[in-house]
């Protein structure tokens, strides 16, 4: 938890849980016509590197289209990166997630989980809460019979739901409760790394605070490590130890949280921070940001060049 006092990075005597090195994800653009010749590349994530220590929360912020979700999904191998390394430490070993094939990844899938943004479309409406939360355990053959039921019930209690909610369907729950179901599904296998992709963005303010508190409590209880992807800077500041600011596929600034917010170095970070409207009417905001978000397909220098050298 960020307390305002600068922390020692890296923490002494600890190996990073995750090392991302020169991670790239390129999507080809194909031209028109019969042959559909490749005409260009979208560099969704370009040369992204960072390290993450156990028990920490690492934030990735940026505007839509900056590649933050691509990085998150590449790490859990929901998509296959083009190049780079994702070194993940588990059970005393270290695996490169980029090089592993599906079979090699399978045992690691239980250690890497994801919480999604939209609590309305990320839960299957035809499955009960019990089925949703039990599915990962069944697929990975981690529990069955009464043990399975116990683990599901215990997990529901942990995220603030009641065991009797098991037999209901997602439509019977509010947005905040659904996000709790999504969190229960991600945590039921006791992962070590959880990627929260805009996990609280779709929630109302009063419920958002509850879910943020829940995520922090669970982190303490279960020793989780989070990658927290968000566009809301105040949320990121609240829960992250370190934050990477992304723009057009690249990390433009990576800094310990309190420093990033008190002394932003990069002009884009400064612009982003000044754009957040303050709830205090006496603090005026800057509204003169020029241009549009860089389109990663074309040279971002053309669009809003002042942010990238």
């Amino acid at each position, binding site marked *: 938890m960020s307390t305002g006092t600068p922390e020692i990075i890296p923490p002494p005597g600890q190996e990073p849980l995750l090392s991302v090195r020169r991670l790239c994800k390129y999507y080809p653009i194909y031209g028109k016509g019969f042959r559909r010749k490749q005409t260009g590349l979208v560099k969704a994530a370009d040369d992204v590197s960072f390290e993450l220590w156990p028990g920490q929360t690492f934030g990735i912020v940026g505007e839509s289209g900056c590649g933050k979700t691509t990085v998150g999904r590449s790490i859990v191998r929901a998509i296959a990166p083009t190049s780079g390394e994702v070194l993940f430490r588990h059970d005393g070993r270290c695996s490169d997630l980029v090089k592993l094939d599906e079979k090699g990844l399978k045992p690691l899938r239980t250690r890497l989980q994801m919480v999604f943004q939209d609590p309305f479309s990320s839960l299957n409406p035809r499955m009960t809460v019990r089925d949703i939360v039990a599915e990962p355990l069944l697929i990975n053959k981690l529990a069955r019979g009464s043990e399975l039921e116990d683990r599901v019930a215990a997990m529901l209690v942990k995220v603030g739901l009641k065991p009797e909610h098991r037999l209901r369907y997602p439509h019977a729950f509010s947005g905040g409760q659904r996000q709790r179901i999504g969190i229960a599904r991600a945590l039921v296998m006791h992962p070590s790394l959880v990627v929260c992709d805009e996990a609280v963005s779709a929630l109302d*303010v009063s419920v958002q605070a509850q879910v943020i508190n829940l995520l922090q409590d669970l982190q303490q209880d279960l020793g989780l490590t989070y990658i927290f992807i968000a566009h809301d800077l105040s949320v990121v500041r609240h829960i992250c130890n370190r934050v990477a600011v992304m723009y057009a596929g690249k990390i433009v600034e990576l800094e310990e949280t309190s420093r990033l917010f008190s002394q932003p170095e990069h002009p884009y970070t400064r612009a982003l921070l000044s754009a957040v409207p303050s709830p205090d009417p006496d603090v005026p905001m800057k509204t003169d940001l020029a241009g549009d978000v860089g389109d990663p397909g074309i040279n971002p220098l053309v669009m809003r060049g002042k942010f990238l050298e």
Partner: protein
Amino acid sequence: MDSSVKENVLDVMDLHVCFHTDEGDIRAVDGVTFSMQRGRVTALVGESGCGKSATSYSILRLLQSPGEITGGRILFHPQGGGEIDITALGDNSEGLFRLRGGRISMIFQEPMTALSPVHTIGNQVCEAILLHQKVSKAEAREKAIEMLRKVGISSAETRIDQFPFEMSGGMRQRVVIAMALVCNPEILIADEPTTAVDVTIQAQIMGLIRTLQRDMGTSTLLITHDLGVVAQLADHVAVMYLGRIVERADVRSLMKTPRHPYTMGLLNSLPSLAMNKKRLPSIGGSVPGMMEIPPGCPFNPRCRYAQPGRCDVGHPPGPETIGEGHEVACLRAREIMAEKIT
């Protein structure tokens, strides 16, 4: 201001909106009263399902079945004097069509869906002009280009022949704003104008609304859930919860000295950029469904100040004035104030 012109441009009085469903009637708006001052920005704030959009749709009579205005009046005081009761106008009456998009217009939330994908933006902006003003097509086009330039679209002469899909989200939202303002309306209703765009674009759009509002003197009704946007744009604020206004004040006193427990909770649960606390003070529970509105004060099950036997019985409390232009619908407002000071 000319004394013959009424100070309020719009009065919403005891508005009731009902959605008739198979499970029963949902009272989405339950006795809402507020006024909009001429040339000012009035904000309606609340979480999803609080009835803020139903209120704004009622003002333009855009509610569709099963929604229906079941009571109350909406009085519009145009610049030239007189008074129009919007609730009394016929569904397809000439008077209503003249208001919509002409004297009262609206910016919708989704810049993706508010524009027709099969018409150029020029066609869409000109449509509003041709409907409400007696001008030729060429003149309308000129006006449209001028308006697009005003909302900050560069090379408007060429952009006007583009389709919405050729533009970014921020550009589209500018087009929607241009469409709403091209007939120089007296009232602009902005329903979540920045929810679907990024912070940097939001900052631009907010700056744009502020400048245009100042230059054109439009009275604006801002519908939003974002308290930061409210603090930066609004002059007056009404906070809604479960179809009722729970607190109303000018923006400074509402943000600095909120008096309703719900408003206090909302402001406290914002993770702030300035300070860094370990745990966010959150409001317990969640917004109940519209079918199960609790008796007494609708907020009482989630309120940390609620007193059993007092807050959870009878009718919901009505608004009470506790400061200059500051109204609160809470039985314990004064007691909580005293408690906080001592």
